């Protein structure tokens, strides 16, 4: 597939054109908090050397709250009304490679025994154009789990910021190719060897561990003193799972709209919350933050790999950056690595 050059101005024009076609365009918000569906190209924030946004873009594939169906009570019984999947097409622009990489990881769990049509429809209707990352800090560790600042997993195309201010556009998938063919008027042809990216101000992520070795240790050490005080300072707030691009637990509740109507909602949930595994009997098999924290590590770096041959993590470091009490997942991995 071909590579292109696109100027910063043409990105703006392209985006407005896409919006005009009735598509949604999602980009990181200028506040750096989350991803937003923008209304105009001026709202775009494409920065290769910025810290990952606080919230990942998983909300757009697996929303924080989503109706599964609706109900209406009447004198004669309950009537159910289906919720239909979103048909709207969406362009994701400027996602970091570690964000895009979460999509194939999540797709595994949403298509394992039950095919989640809501999720699949959203993925199907999306074109993900990621941006080669020029950032790293003490909490990034994409390189330790087989990704990198230019990893292409989950991307349909990838932009690389050039020294002259334009962007090198590398098409990754058929879907990406088809999409950009529609907007070829904004692109200039080029060759892979013309790719002259800007130099990253940041070094490669400093956190290093060997996932294979970590997995081996996790396999053997479900019970280990190491776990004991790990959860001591954890407040069980669960923000790590909410900001994580790959965490995907959900809860289902009914919400009343008025006294006889409402929707059954699928909501984000978190294994770090104390009610997560609490049984109706009052018994809780994971009855302390230590056990819950172990679950988080085990699920990400062992169970998911056992089941899907994937690590449930893209090394974006969001969980650590946002942690109110400074629990450092990369640091923990490094410690396990050294056992």
């Amino acid at each position, binding site marked *: 597939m071909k590579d292109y050059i696109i100027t910063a101005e043409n990105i703006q024009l392209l985006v407005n054109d896409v919006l005009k076609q009735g598509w949604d365009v999602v980009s990181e918000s200028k506040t750096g908090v989350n991803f937003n569906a923008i209304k105009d190209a001026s709202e775009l924030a494409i920065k290769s050397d910025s810290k990952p946004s606080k919230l990942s873009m998983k909300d757009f594939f697996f929303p924080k709250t989503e109706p599964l169906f*609706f109900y209406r009570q009447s004198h004669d019984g309950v009537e159910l009304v289906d919720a239909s999947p979103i048909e709207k097409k969406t362009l994701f622009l400027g996602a970091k490679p570690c964000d895009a990489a979460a999509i194939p990881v999540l797709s595994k769990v949403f298509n394992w025994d039950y095919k989640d049509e809501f999720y699949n429809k959203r993925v199907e209707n999306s074109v993900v154009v990621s941006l080669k990352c020029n950032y790293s800090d003490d909490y990034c560790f994409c390189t330790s789990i087989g990704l990198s600042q230019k990893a292409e997993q989950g991307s349909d195309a990838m932009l690389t910021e050039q020294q002259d201010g334009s962007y090198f556009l590398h098409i990754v998938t058929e879907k990406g190719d088809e999409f950009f063919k529609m907007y070829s008027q904004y692109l200039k042809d080029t060759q892979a060897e013309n790719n002259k990216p800007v130099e990253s101000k940041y070094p490669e992520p400093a956190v290093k561990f060997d996932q294979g070795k970590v997995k081996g240790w996790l396999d053997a050490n479900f019970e280990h003193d190491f776990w004991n005080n790990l959860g001591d300072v954890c407040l069980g707030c669960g923000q790590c799972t909410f900001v994580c691009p790959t965490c995907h637990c959900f809860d289902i509740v009914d919400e009343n709209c008025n006294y006889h109507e409402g929707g059954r909602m699928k909501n984000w949930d978190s294994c770090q919350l104390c009610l997560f595994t609490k049984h109706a009997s009052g018994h809780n098999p994971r009855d302390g933050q230590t056990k819950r924290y172990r679950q988080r590590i085990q699920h990400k770096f062992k169970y998911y790999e056992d089941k899907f041959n994937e690590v449930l993590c893209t090394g974006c470091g969001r969980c650590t950056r946002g942690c109110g009490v400074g629990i450092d997942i990369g640091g923990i991995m490094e410690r396990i690595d050294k056992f």
Partner: protein
Amino acid sequence: MAENSFEPKITAFVCNWCTYTGADLAGTSRLKQQTNARLIRLPCTGRIDPVFIMKAFQNGADGVLVSGCHPGDCHYNAGNFHARRRWAMFKEMMDFLGIDNKRLHFSWVSASEGKKWVDVIDGVINTVREQGPFTQYKDINKETEIPVK
């Protein structure tokens, strides 16, 4: 009532001993009132949780009135004094969050103040009618609503 004029829905939380009885007195005295108010009877204003007010707005009320015994008259000695602090704080917060204080009203109406009850409730209805429907609050309740196909 004119066909297309807006008629507000008012939920009133009242205590059993003073305001409810005061409203009963207004009834036995045949003091005419507008029909917009629906009363919920509670033992005491001390029982009224601000969540009730929130739920009323969530469920379509355009205005809320909370009313109980005058200070010193509480059937339970001090329920209304505790309520008074709670309301003052809740009202201040509502205002800060952008919920118009013209939609949230408080009064003391004793069992003998049938006339005052009429003045209060009609006043509340008129004030809320001027504000128009509380669409802001209704608009944030779309996600669980059955979509119109």
